[in-house]
């Protein structure tokens, strides 16, 4: 088993997720099942292969940095679950 309960808790922390008892069991089962399956990649020797990271043939697609108005302040706040006239509101960070 590659992912145990402790590893899952750490991954959940990094992802800002949390699981109750039932979902922890399901997650552990599914993840380990998937990882066992994925392990077949070790059958292939890739020692001398370079990773492929870029799929687009467009390289260094540069343009002049022109200042433009994107969303207006008002529109930027429009979808916020909680806001005041100028800012997104979140629970207090500093005591």
């Amino acid at each position, binding site marked *: 088993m590659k*992912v145990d309960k402790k*590893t*899952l808790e750490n*991954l*959940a922390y*990094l*992802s*800002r*997720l*949390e*699981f109750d008892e039932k*979902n922890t069991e*399901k*997650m552990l089962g*599914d*993840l380990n*099942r*998937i*990882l066992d*399956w*994925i392990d*077949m*990649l*070790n*059958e*292939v020797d*890739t020692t001398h*292969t*370079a*990773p*492929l*990271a*870029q*799929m*687009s*043939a*467009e390289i260094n*697609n540069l*343009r002049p940095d022109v200042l433009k108005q994107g*969303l207006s302040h008002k*529109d*930027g706040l*429009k*979808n*916020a*679950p*909680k806001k005041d006239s100028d800012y*997104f509101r*979140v*629970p*207090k*960070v500093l005591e």
Partner: protein
Amino acid sequence: MKKYSSFSDIQSDILSQKITCETLVAYYLQNIEARNAELNVFTSVYADEAKAQAKIIDEKIKNGTQGKLAGLVVGIKDVLAYQNHPLQASSKILDGFISQFTATAVQRLLNEDAIIIGRQNCDEFAMGSSNENSTYGLTRNAQDPSRVPGGSSGASAVAIQADMCLVSLGSDTGGSVRQPASFCGVVGLKPTYSRISRYGLVAYASSFDCIGIFGNNVIDVAKTLEVIAGADDFDSTVSKNDVPNYTQEILEKAPQKYKIAYIKETLENDGLSALVKEKTLSKIKSLQEAGHTVEAVDFPLLKYLLPVYYILTTAEASSNLGRYDGVRYGYRSKNVSDLKDLYVKTRSEGFGIEVQKRIILGTFVLSASYYDAYYTKAQKMRRLVKEATDKIFENYDFIVMPTTPNIAFKIGENQTDPVQMYLEDIFTVQANVVGIPAISIPNGTDENGLSVGFQIASSHFQEEKLLKFANEISN
């Protein structure tokens, strides 16, 4: 009004004033009204707007000033931004979100006077192969409502199948256009990676994501592609290659004899159903009889495609979905006392379980101790797969194979084993791993009318040839 199965028929009837855009929109709205409650295809229907737009375009037609897609009624998957319209990627985490801008692909349709009739259901964040994972509930296959339509763009395929619009835009990250097209008996195209701007497409896995097109026939799909493809200031990865006039290519160039490969491992695959195998073999035989050369090639990397796909896409997804934090838009949990709580509760309540699983898996393969073993390994495998595929295209014009190993499965059937569900995409992921274009066309049905699909792939940016050939062999 009669059922239209091609845009050219609609255009000629509009120009000869047999029908108007208004009556056309009314017709599609009636079809949506008739079956949407049962099939759950459209999550928003823009009825009043579509009617108003139709009126304006009818006026333009009278004056001869209409765009080239006048009379095209389109549905868009709930991953495409359309200004001042809802956009949720079928997720609770985007609850109530209203788009602030319009995706380039959608804007280009509007510029040519296409009419957007509504927003279509899908698997949450385009993650799924059955359209069962949606905050709006599952979508049903119109041919047999006890079965899935495929996914993730399931509803976009059903919309064509049930004649609720003429063309749908979906997205295809691992087969999400071609697999549902196959399950629903319609045509589905995934173009070359970077052929269509991704501006305004909700990100799942950015090095795989592609906007795709559904239609009743290849020509409608080609016509849509030539409008929406091409360079765009808002996507730095989009290709600057010229966009050919695909329809002209299809209609005017003489048919050719091609060299076609089929991958031996696809037909020897354990999961392949007898019916799909038989239909595929008989299609291959008919191609040979038509004078094409069709030969078997080996592609031993086939079984590694899905593991490569799942490592890379979950890694990219875990990063792309980091933005959903409940601060700036969408859903926010009510049960929060501090900021950390706000993030954790919002994300845990807002994302469905499949999405959470992929975020966790992606976080795992990117974590320091496993990065090389999984993520780098998969990137290396991606290169091997690309080189092996390119090599086939040195000798062949196309690779053909079944789109899916099975016909549409029953709702709930593949819910217990995640790997079994992932295997549904075994034949479609190659195109996304490599970045090449591929199309699914109908290839007959079983005795109950359930569709089988036939997939054709070509080398990068060979859509002209691909669409022309797909059209020729469509029956």
